[in-house]
């Protein structure tokens, strides 16, 4: 029987030769990821109540990213508790203030094709960029996973999303996702496994694929899968994981595997997208969006502050200045992104344009750290979500866009199309090439 990639991974994790969509199965978890917000402080009391420890500390990765760096005694206490818990339970892999969990997992080669990953965070599907079946769960369920190494699962159907053609200048993975959010609506994937495909996919760097997989969460997918190719192997190689070519053929859907639906998107016809408050599905082409004046432009989050994202912003900002009356805040997604952006001059470009650098971490994305908004303020952000009140005061308004569009808007002081700014360059910025070099 022909199977989808999702079915193949679930079957392996469930110890079965095959599974059918709709079946209730129990999967063995290959990797469990916890962060400071939903992690130890929530799961520790539950594990205590159960009277058990971790089923396998070597399969657990702990990341402190939400409340870093501490801004008050309460967040400091949460970070302290996280450290103590990690030590007490023998969790050797605790990435403490080294970046946002989903990016850190990828950078260290913790997520690989065919793995079954459970994370205490809704953007856990980011790992699907590496063809891992990765799903987000809440704290009680995470505690159950930590206690038993198992999780219940209704085998999902697959929604296939085919990307045709090549995106034009100024159009990147974030635009693809915002357009998809508008097309199928928030949660439109109905907790199916999303599998990206199509000839356009090959052109996306790993970090761009991470953006595609990341926002599978907004589409409502249980996970977002990208079948592996040479780029996947090259990224993993750099992270110290050598995989054979056999993995490339093993972890992909059979050509005739039945899927619930197939959706096509023509990349060459796509314009940069902007999602209006208060939902990612309120997306529209940037030239159809009112050029609203903005108080804050934010380049941050697992979705929009990886090295490729920062380079995109720099390509727009080089030799330009952030508009008076507007602030541009940049929080690189990880310590490694920070280092590499410093080494290649990206950071200097950003700060010369007037960007204010913030620590690596979730920060303003979830309204936890530096960069939150005042009542009535307007922000354009490279993050994944613009729910009411998420980034600060309830009456603040957040628009979502790609790092290119956020940077262009910072320069204009209002929502702006990045394409004219990119076209003004004598030599067009080689985003695709740079991206290829990275991923």
């Amino acid at each position, binding site marked *: 029987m022909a199977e989808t990639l999702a079915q193949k991974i679930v079957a392996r994790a469930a110890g079965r030769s095959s599974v059918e969509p709709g079946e209730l199965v129990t999967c063995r978890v290959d990797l469990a990821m916890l962060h400071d917000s*939903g992690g130890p402080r929530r799961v520790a009391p539950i594990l205590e109540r159960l009277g058990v420890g971790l089923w396998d500390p070597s399969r657990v990765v702990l990341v402190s990213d939400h409340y870093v760096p501490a801004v008050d005694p309460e*967040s400091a206490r949460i970070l302290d508790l996280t450290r103590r818990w990690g030590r007490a339970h023998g969790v050797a892999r605790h990435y403490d203030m080294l970046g946002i969990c989903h990016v850190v997992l990828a950078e260290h080669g913790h997520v690989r094709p065919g793995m079954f990953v459970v994370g205490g*965070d809704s953007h856990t599907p980011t790992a699907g960029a590496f063809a891992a079946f990765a799903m*987000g769960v*809440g704290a009680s369920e995470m505690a159950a996973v930590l206690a038993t190494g198992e999780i219940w699962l209704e085998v999902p159907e697959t929604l296939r999303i085919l990307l045709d053609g090549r995106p034009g200048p100024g159009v990147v993975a974030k635009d693809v996702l915002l357009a998809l959010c508008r097309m199928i609506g928030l*949660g439109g994937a*109905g907790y199916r496994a999303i599998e990206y495909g199509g000839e356009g996919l090959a052109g996306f760097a790993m970090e761009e694929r991470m953006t595609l997989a990341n926002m599978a969460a907004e589409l*409502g997918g249980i996970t977002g899968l990208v079948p592996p190719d040479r780029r996947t192997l090259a990224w993993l190689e750099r992270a110290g994981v050598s995989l054979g070519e056999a993995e490339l053929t093993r972890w992909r859907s059979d050509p005739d595997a039945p899927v619930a639906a197939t959706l096509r998107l023509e990349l060459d016809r796509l314009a940069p997208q902007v999602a209006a408050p208060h939902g990612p599905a309120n997306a529209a082409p940037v030239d159809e969006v009112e050029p609203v004046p903005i108080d804050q432009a934010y380049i941050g989050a697992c979705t929009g502050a990886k090295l490729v994202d920062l380079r995109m912003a720099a390509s727009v900002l080089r030799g330009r200045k952030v508009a008076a009356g507007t602030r541009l805040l940049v929080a690189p997604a990880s310590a490694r992104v920070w280092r590499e952006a410093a080494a290649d001059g990206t950071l200097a470009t950003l700060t010369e344009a007037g960007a204010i650098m913030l620590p690596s971490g979730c920060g303003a994305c*979830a309204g936890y750290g530096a960069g939150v908004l005042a009542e009535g303020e307007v922000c354009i952000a490279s993050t994944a979500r613009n729910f009411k009140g998420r980034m600060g005061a309830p009456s603040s308004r957040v628009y979502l866009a790609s790092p290119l569009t956020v940077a262009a808007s910072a320069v204009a002081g209002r929502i702006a199309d990045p394409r004219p700014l990119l076209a003004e360059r004598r030599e067009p910025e080689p985003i695709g090439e740079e991206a290829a070099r990275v991923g």
Partner: protein
Amino acid sequence: MSAELEGRAFLVGDDVDTDLLAPGAYMKGPIEELARHCLEALDPDFARSVRPGDILLAGRNFGTGSSREQAAQALSVLGIRAVVARSFAGIFYRNALNLGLLAVVCPEWDGIARFDRVRLDPRAGRLVHLASGRSFACRPIPGHLLEMVESGGIVPWLERRLAARRAEGAR
């Protein structure tokens, strides 16, 4: 086991997200405090106007957003016993069941007004509007999962399983 429940219907719309249910600003504090702010951005009186035993009737994609289970927990703390929605965001759905809060998919429940009395049978998959007697088909919760919900969620359920295993080991 308590198969059916009856209560007052409390209505909300589509795409009610986890930031509305569990606002980020109160995430550091205790759940009782967080619950007082549940849905306040939508309806400032929500926490004061729901009563224990209420059944929340929602539109599509209920609970979209983050994995924070406080979104489901806040509703439980306020005494809500079940959420009936046209559709759920997957993680919220799992969290609710794992916390012992019934989450039932009911694609159509038109004609039910705020505070009308309804009866829910999660096992059979049926919602009844008591005033009109109209019955709406829901997706039944598989027996295995319902057992977990009725034992109070995944933690009490696991607690029982572990205790049983230990007792077996001791023999």
